[in-house]
């Protein structure tokens, strides 16, 4: 039982990272529009996240410091400034998207306009960040997030054509009626949604919050190699349930509510309630996670004391950054910009900034001064380098595709 609970950091990172509002939207859109032909993008993003998450976790466990603390020291103040500032901008956008997403789910469940929920959701996210102990937060949100398994079960309950799903998955061709640039746009959106920068910051800083050391490397690896693929599985399930229900009807997913309808087809009102609850947990967990990640990134860059283990007065600047992030994000949503638009912009900009986040991780994970005998091996380096090249290509084509396809229209 204790070992299972030890996996909750990976599960929470996966629930709040992979299956946040960005993935709920992009998986729903792509499943309804392209079937499983873009499943490879989720698989690729998941592998990349697991490989780089393991490196970041290893740095945290061996060097006893979160990865971006080491990055600043290793790459210097100026070079790491680019990394830290891009992370902060993206995180604030992500927090806005998640708060907006949580508020949209509450609107769906209650009929009360989402803008009225925004201040309450923001306050609740900040309270969790400020007051709730780290381990309790990860366990409660991680375990509640397991409710998202309803999408996996629904897939077995629905009249799913498994042969067709599998065929689309292993033969990823652009459907004849769809434009190639838009298909590629959603491919990079899915990769971006899997590799959102805050995940790696949260995971490595969470490792320090839990005082990981070399003896915890096994637990850390279980978290990365079970937790992240679990998130990838949920992401694929969200995509797959749209195929037998929404795709035959020509439904294109524009709203969170549409993404939950397949579960209602499978299990009725109870299933729908569980699906909405799982969306609520996933988006709220992501709001808390990305808020904390902003605080971690800024505090680690400037060398301030940080962490939920410390009383707020002992990490006042860290807590202030978290509060300012929540306020700025809630303010962004309250301008009435559609949260789904914020989500797509944050996911796509995140994709463009992926190398800024992950290249320093690869550098630090190869530095013997920090990791000694635990530096990357040949396999990890080969895999990491290939994945980094893919990330650079993704980053280069992201903005042109965004403009060319008018954000996937």
């Amino acid at each position, binding site marked *: 039982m204790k070992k299972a609970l030890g996996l909750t950091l990976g599960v929470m990172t996966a629930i709040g990272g992979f299956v946040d509002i960005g993935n709920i939207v992009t998986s729903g859109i792509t499943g309804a529009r392209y079937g499983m032909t873009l499943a490879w993008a989720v698989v690729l993003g998941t592998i990349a996240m697991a490989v780089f998450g393991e490196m970041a976790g290893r740095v945290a466990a061996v060097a006893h410091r979160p990865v971006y603390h080491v990055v600043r020291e290793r790459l210097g103040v100026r070079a790491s400034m680019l990394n830290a500032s891009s992370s902060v901008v993206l995180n604030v956008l992500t927090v806005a998207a998640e708060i907006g997403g949580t508020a949209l789910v509450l609107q769906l469940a209650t009929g009360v306009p989402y803008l009225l929920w925004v201040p309450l959701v923001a306050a609740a996210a900040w309270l969790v960040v400020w007051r709730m102990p780290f381990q309790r937060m990860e366990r409660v949100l991680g375990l509640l997030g397991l409710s998202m398994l309803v999408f996996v079960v629904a897939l077995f309950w629905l009249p799913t054509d498994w042969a067709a799903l599998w065929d689309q998955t292993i033969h990823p061709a652009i459907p004849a009626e769809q434009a190639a640039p838009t298909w590629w746009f959603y491919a990079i959106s899915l990769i971006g949604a899997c590799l959102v920068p805050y995940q790696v910051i949260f995971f490595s800083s969470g490792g320090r919050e839990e005082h990981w050391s070399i003896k915890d490397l096994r637990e850390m690896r279980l978290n990365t190699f079970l937790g992240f693929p679990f998130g990838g599985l949920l992401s694929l399930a969200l995509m797959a349930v749209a195929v037998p229900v929404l795709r035959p009807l020509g439904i294109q997913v524009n709203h969170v509510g549409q993404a939950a309808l397949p579960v209602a087809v499978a299990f009725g009102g109870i299933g729908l309630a569980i699906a909405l609850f799982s969306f609520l947990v996933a988006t709220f967990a992501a709001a808390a996670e990305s808020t904390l990640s902003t605080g971690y990134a800024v505090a680690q860059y400037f060398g301030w004391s940080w962490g939920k283990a410390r009383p707020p007065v002992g990490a006042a600047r860290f807590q202030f950054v978290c509060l300012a992030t929540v306020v700025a994000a809630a303010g962004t949503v309250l301008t009435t910009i559609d949260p789904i638009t914020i989500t797509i912009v944050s996911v796509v900009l995140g994709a463009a900034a992926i190398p800024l986040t992950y290249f320093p991780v690869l550098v630090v994970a190869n530095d013997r001064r920090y990791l000694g005998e635990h530096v990357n091996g040949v396999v990890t380096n080969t895999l990491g380098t290939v994945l980094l090249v893919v990330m650079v290509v993704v980053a280069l084509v992201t903005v042109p595709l965004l403009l060319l396809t008018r*954000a996937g229209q």
Partner: protein
Amino acid sequence: MVPGALAVALLTGCAGPTLDAGSYRQAALHTTIDLASAVATAELATRLELTGRSLAPVTSEVVSAAEDDGSSIAESFTSRQPPDEDSRALFSQLDDVVTAATDALTALRMALGLGNQAGVRQALDELQRARAALVGWQERLQ
């Protein structure tokens, strides 16, 4: 810089200018696809509700969102200037289908709000006809 440029691109990318008959036809095709999606969403949510497989607030929200989407799609369609007589004729024919679909979405939302079962079923029938017409147009325009 980049986020600013993106915001402008996204905001101005809602309904680009129609340059020629080909792109007008393409825009008409997208109108039928998007509107058929909104109609199918409302139909699915309502049928789930009628069979006791949904939650009332969710149905109401999903149908309202579909109605908003439908209105927005119809507005974009009517705001485009047909570039020639053939396009003008296309507009005239398609406009009836678009109006029928958006009217049916509004009727459905109202009937659901009033708890009018007969009105809901009538609106569903109208939506089904509108969707069949939209799908027919998709095949003609593709």
